[in-house]
């Protein structure tokens, strides 16, 4: 018997999304899923190295939040960053090339899986250590407020979305940044992807208050608990939080209850989680669930969805081909980028 928190109810029917919006979310989720599946394949074929943390199972969170943002908003991620980068608009070919360590990668082959960056897409980065991305996202949000309030730039209303996991919420930077965000009413959204496990440490074994969304309350920040396997529920919560942030009313914490379908990284034997638990969550696959919803609500037909899947399959195929064919960074440029050039 798998003990789970009662998931918050969300009335999808009341979400009233357009067919266009539904397909946009679906396409982004398919991209996240197919891209990561291909990463696993490429890792086992020796095309990429190091620690590779895949996002399978959590797609509703990335798509639900990031696809609710504007392109000029900021996204800040963790070591599990491929799909956040994709949702933020970083082309799949540049993410794949980075994982292959190529010069055409979004970090020019210097970063790797846990250090994806794209200034062009306001993607502030993959941050490999726990919690260190939160203050960086806070800084982007501060910058937005600074431009508006100190420099009088009225169009400076960019919001920063900051992603991190359940394990990070026991880290000091989480609490320090909630405090400063609330204190200065910064336009930031803290998105906790609670997938129940910090590698092999069960969430309940590591924290005195497992309901993370409740931790926002002591800072006077709205804390929202969301079914992280339901993209529409995440999307709705994100929209509310973004509107609040943009209006200058301050931060929101969204706790998304989700699950990763693979081990912590591809190097993790994944021996701690029970088969029953994995099956129970697998049965709630956010992608199948949303696909069924789109069909039920007649927002899309089978051929349309099939065409999207084919398109994404082609995108990922092309990304691998691009990555394979791209050159390695030149050894002549080993020292480039240590300092900003004049």
């Amino acid at each position, binding site marked *: 018997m798998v003990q789970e928190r009662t998931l918050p109810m969300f009335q999808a029917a009341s979400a009233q999304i357009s067919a266009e919006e539904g397909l946009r979310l679906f396409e982004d989720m398919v991209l996240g899923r197919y891209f990561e599946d291909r990463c696993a394949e490429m890792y086992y074929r020796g095309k990429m190295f190091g620690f590779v943390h895949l996002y399978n199972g959590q797609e509703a969170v990335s798509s639900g939040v990031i696809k609710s943002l504007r392109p000029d908003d*900021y996204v*800040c991620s963790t070591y599990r960053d491929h799909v956040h980068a994709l949702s933020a608009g970083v082309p799949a070919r540049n993410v794949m090339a980075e994982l292959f360590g190529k010069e055409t*990668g*979004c*970090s*020019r*082959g*210097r*970063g790797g899986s846990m*250090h994806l*960056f*794209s*200034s062009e897409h*306001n993607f*502030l*980065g993959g*941050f*490999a*250590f726990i919690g*260190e991305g*939160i*203050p*960086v*996202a*806070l*800084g*982007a*949000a*501060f*910058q*937005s*407020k*600074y431009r508006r*309030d*100190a*420099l009088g730039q009225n169009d400076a209303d960019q919001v*920063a979305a900051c992603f991190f996991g359940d394990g990070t919420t026991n880290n*000091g*930077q989480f609490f*320090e*940044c909630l*405090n*400063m965000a609330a*204190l200065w009413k910064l336009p930031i959204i803290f998105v906790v992807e609670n997938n129940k496990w910090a590698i092999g440490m069960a969430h309940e074994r590591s924290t005195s208050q497992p309901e993370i969304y409740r931790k926002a309350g002591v800072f006077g920040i709205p804390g929202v608990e969301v079914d992280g396997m339901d993209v529409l529920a995440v999307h709705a919560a994100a929209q509310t939080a973004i509107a609040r942030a943009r209006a200058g009313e301050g931060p929101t914490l969204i706790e998304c209850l989700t699950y990763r379908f693979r081990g912590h990284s591809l190097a993790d034997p994944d021996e701690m989680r029970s088969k029953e638990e994995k099956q129970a969550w697998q049965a709630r696959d956010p992608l199948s669930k949303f696909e069924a919803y789109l069909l039920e609500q007649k927002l899309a037909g089978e051929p349309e969805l099939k065409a999207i899947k084919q398109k994404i399959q082609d995108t990922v195929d092309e990304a691998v081909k691009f990555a394979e064919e791209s050159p390695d960074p030149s050894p002549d440029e080993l020292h*480039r*980028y*240590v*300092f*900003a050039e004049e």
Partner: protein
Amino acid sequence: MAETFLFNALREAIDEEMGRDETVFVLGEDVGHYGGSYKVTKDLYQKYGELRVLDTPIAENSFTGMAIGAAMTGLRPIIEGMNMGFLLLAFNQIANNAGMLRYTSGGNYKIPMVIRGPGGVGRQLGAEHSQRLEAYFQAVPGLKIVACSTPYNAKGLLKSAIRDDNPVLFFEHVLLYNLKEDLPNHEYLVPIDRAEIVRSGKDVTLLTYSRMRHHVMQAVKTLEKDGFDPEVIDLISLKPIDFETIGASIQKTHRVIVVEECMRTAGIAAEIIASINDRCFDELDAPVLRLSSQDIPTPYNGKLESFTIVQPKQIVEAVKKMMALQV
């Protein structure tokens, strides 16, 4: 010319740069209403407002990370470390993000940021407040490290550091804030990558930085009386080291003593000596010597504390001993 305290020279630098560039802002503990623990930002919040002179909660790692995020997105933060030792709490943000992020991002982001504040051994402040973090941070790629030593260079260096597009750790010394000097009335900059030849001489090159510059100059007074002619170079830039200036001096003197306030093990001198051996071993007439602080936590007791750091008398003795070597 106006006689200016070192802390006010720094304040003038910040004031001028904030006036010149609206993306420059200050953040840290007690920098606003309180005016900074050494009054370097006194009353600036009244002139520039509370967002541009931002009092932060005591959360070093997070407000440092916040400054990095602000720098990545177009602002130019100046962090005041109330005491540079507190920045040990921000080591992760300074090393992993300020230092390495430009490289790991393949040049996607630059991080124009200054982290400044008092370091060094003061007067019986105890071990934790008497740190010399320049030695700990020198191994981090992507950081520039600067140490000022006079009101004149403090002002000109800080202005240059603020305009630099890289993260700069800017060390002031807790015992030098009340130094006074006549400063020019016109605007000036001092480059952060050049060592300063404080005294030209031909016998021996004394390399030093920060407060030890003043200990060295005290020693030089005695040495002059005894007929010696040392060259004194203030390193200014602790990373990268200005080997051009050092190399030229060694070609002249063929002897080097490094006088530093950091601890001996893996200190600034350790790196300089290794590099001198790599670059100009054949020029040397004697092994390079280093006078460093003892490898111990700085003791509270005043007498023990004075034995922990290098005193002028030791510098005099070291020079005489080196000059007595027959080659």
